[in-house]
């Protein structure tokens, strides 16, 4: 890992299907009063209504090298055009690349790692993917382009949210998060988003993601389902049939109100509570709100429990298994529900693996491990980013990678911040246990 001083021109890659709102976003960026000189390279004809910026139309040219290894595939059009742009006196503060809806983001990103000229002068700042919340369901399962655009993204705009019911957007966001935990997801109408959310984000800035969502690197939930209920004070029946397991753990948490935001705000506490010791509840027993892990005993046939509510309000019931497996019945309909799919069900899908540990890593061991990992699994690892605490270095080391390529540099001093390592892999068929174990063996 070599030290580089960041004086390279930042590049943002804008991906998304035709009609997702990419051009709207681009126009927004160009008309915003940011005082920056932006050069735009367009591969798709869009109506850019700005004259004072440099807009270059280019035909996408994919250059395969080394017998077509996908990790060495780059974009010839970008090398040619950007190479020329960098010679101009009036240099640019920022470069935006708008890809076609069906473009594979990997060669675009790899261009900034593979080509020596590009690598020295420009740095990939981020991949921004715009998603049409209305139409993405038609593509998300079938289209590898759609999946890759989501998996490669640092920022995802769920656009046109005004045209879709809120519940569906929640479902979409949950689905996207399963694939790419590292991306920041913003819900937008007409691609309205703050420029600071998409420009100069520094592709490997994990900090903000960590600040906002403590669950960021811990995607496996110990529960499969949560239902939000509006309860009055009093006693409710909870009836369950026998199911695949003889017991089921459940936690009931009070909420501020019956909303997804409110549900999300207690998720983390629910996770912690699920790691507590179970309190067995025999049939006829009662479930009460708070950080108590109830273990409902469900052997043989229908069982009846009670939910005891002292104060009227919204409550979230988190259950270890999906309640349908036990035909759970409560006399009140839930106001909203959320499914938490355990990660192991998606082995064949694109997913993220996050690793967070304390301690310092041994630079040599890490290099060796990464080299082996990427040479064997680089094709399936789309993105990789992280902050590392390297033994004997006072500064944080930040890095990001695309397939087999990576780029890293020392960042700010650790100072009083506790030294730790946070890294995330996004890709296909990732081996969570293997990655975690491999990384832990690199600790000094």
């Amino acid at each position: 890992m070599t030290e580089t001083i960041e004086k390279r021109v930042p590049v943002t890659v804008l991906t998304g299907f035709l009609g997702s709102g990419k051009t709207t976003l681009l126009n927004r960026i160009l008309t915003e009063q940011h005082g920056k000189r932006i050069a735009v390279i367009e591969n798709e004809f869009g109506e850019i209504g700005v004259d004072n910026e440099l807009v270059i139309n280019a035909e996408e040219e994919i250059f395969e090298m080394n017998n077509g290894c996908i990790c060495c595939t780059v974009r010839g059009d970008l090398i040619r055009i950007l190479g020329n742009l960098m010679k101009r006196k009036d240099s640019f503060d920022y470069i935006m690349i708008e890809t076609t809806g069906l473009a594979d983001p990997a060669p675009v990103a790899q261009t900034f790692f593979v080509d020596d000229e590009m690598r020295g002068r420009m740095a990939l700042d981020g991949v921004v993917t715009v998603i049409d919340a209305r139409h993405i369901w038609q593509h998300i399962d079938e289209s590898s382009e759609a999946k890759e655009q989501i998996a490669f993204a640092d920022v995802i705009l769920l656009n046109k949210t005004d045209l879709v019911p809120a519940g569906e957007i929640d479902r979409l966001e949950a689905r996207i998060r399963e694939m790419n935990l590292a991306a920041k997801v913003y819900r937008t109408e007409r691609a309205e988003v703050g420029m600071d959310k998409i420009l100069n984000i520094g592709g490997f800035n994990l900090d903000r993601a960590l600040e906002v969502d403590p669950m960021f690197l811990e995607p496996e939930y110990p529960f499969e389902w949560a239902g939000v209920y509006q309860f009055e004070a009093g006693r409710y029946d909870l009836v369950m049939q026998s199911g695949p397991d003889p017991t089921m753990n459940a936690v009931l948490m009070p909420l501020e109100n019956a909303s997804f935001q409110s549900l999300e705000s207690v998720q983390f506490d629910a996770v912690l509570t699920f790691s507590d010791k179970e309190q067995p509840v025999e049939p006829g027993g009662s479930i009460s709100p708070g950080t108590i892990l109830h273990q409902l005993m469900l052997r043989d046939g229908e069982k009846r429990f009670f939910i005891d509510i002292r104060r009227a309000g919204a409550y979230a019931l988190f259950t270890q298994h999906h309640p349908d497996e036990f035909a759970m019945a409560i006399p009140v309909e839930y106001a909203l529900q959320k499914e938490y799919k355990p990660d192991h069900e998606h082995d064949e899908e694109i997913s993220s693996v996050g690793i967070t540990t304390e301690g310092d890593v041994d630079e040599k061991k890490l290099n060796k491990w990464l080299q082996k990992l990427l040479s064997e699994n680089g094709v399936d690892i789309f993105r990789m980013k992280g902050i590392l605490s390297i033994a004997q270095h006072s500064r944080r080391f930040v890095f990001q990678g695309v397939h087999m390529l990576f780029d890293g540099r020392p960042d700010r001093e650790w100072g009083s911040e506790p030294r730790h390592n946070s890294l995330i892999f996004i890709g296909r068929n990732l081996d969570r246990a293997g990655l975690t174990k491999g990384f832990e063996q690199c600790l000094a």
Partner: protein
Amino acid sequence: MSGVAAPATNAIGETRWEANLGDHVIRLAWSPSGDSVAAACVEGRIHVLSADSTQRTRSLAGHEHGAQCLSWSHDGRFLASGGQDGRVKLWDAASGELLHSMDAGAAWVEQVAFAPAAPLLVSAAGRHLKLWNLQGDCVREYPAHPSTISDVQWQPGTLFFTSACYGQLATFNAGSAQPVKSFGWKGSILAVAWSPDANYVATGNQDASVHFWYRKSGKDLEMSGYGAKVRELSWDAGSRYLATGGSANITIWDCGGKGPAGTRPIELRKHDAVVSALEYQHKGELLASGCGEGRVCVWRPAGHSAKQSTKGASPLQTWDEGAGITQVRWAPNDKALAISTASGLIRLLGAI
């Protein structure tokens, strides 16, 4: 440009003059007589400077959005240029008058090249290749190439020219729209260099390799292991040595005897950054080189065997220009050297 130490003299002599054009010089070309040097600048202007000490300069309007390439006609009467306005322009070299402006077929004209001994001009823009006469008429338009054409070079002493793009190297003439010969190769070719005897054609490639083809047999060889993409290629006058960039070291392949396969190349080490300009003399044995950090070197490499490559092979003359070297060009009589930089300096050294 001031503040640059005058080069130490020995191999080629002292600075005759220097000029500051104030803009990155992307291409430099000597007129066939050696009387003038033409320079194309990234922002679009084209300048013709007289090589004698009067240093008279004529500036041509050039190209909107940027100039890319230049070529002199074999008799020195015409100058052709191409740029980011999608035009090929034909200029009267003596008066600077624009004679013709032609549509090259795409937004960026990457290459224009006059035939070595005929009034024909070839242009490459995007995937389009066109052949022109001196009246600005398109003599022939060739079928669109599979990808953007990166380079076009005339085969020495012939009316054939060779184009390169991702995936192929193809040789054409005026007589037919179809290539008379083509070599397929799955990779991105950046630069083409015919050996002066036209026995080999070499390419420098994006994947950090150099490829050779034997013209007659079509046999090919690939030399890989460069540190970076290879764009700088130059054959020596005897068609034996090919000097290549692609690294801070200059790598020279000896094509004499059984050819370069399996041999260890000569390496010249003095530059600290990737070599950005390279040219052998037309008849002599000196090699000039420049790098991205501004160092210029003049070498006499033929005397060095591969065994001596790591030590003893020092340049005859070297100095630092303080800005990336973009071109090094020997005068037709080999007695003068013109160099240009990314900051717009042109320096002319030696006798004329």
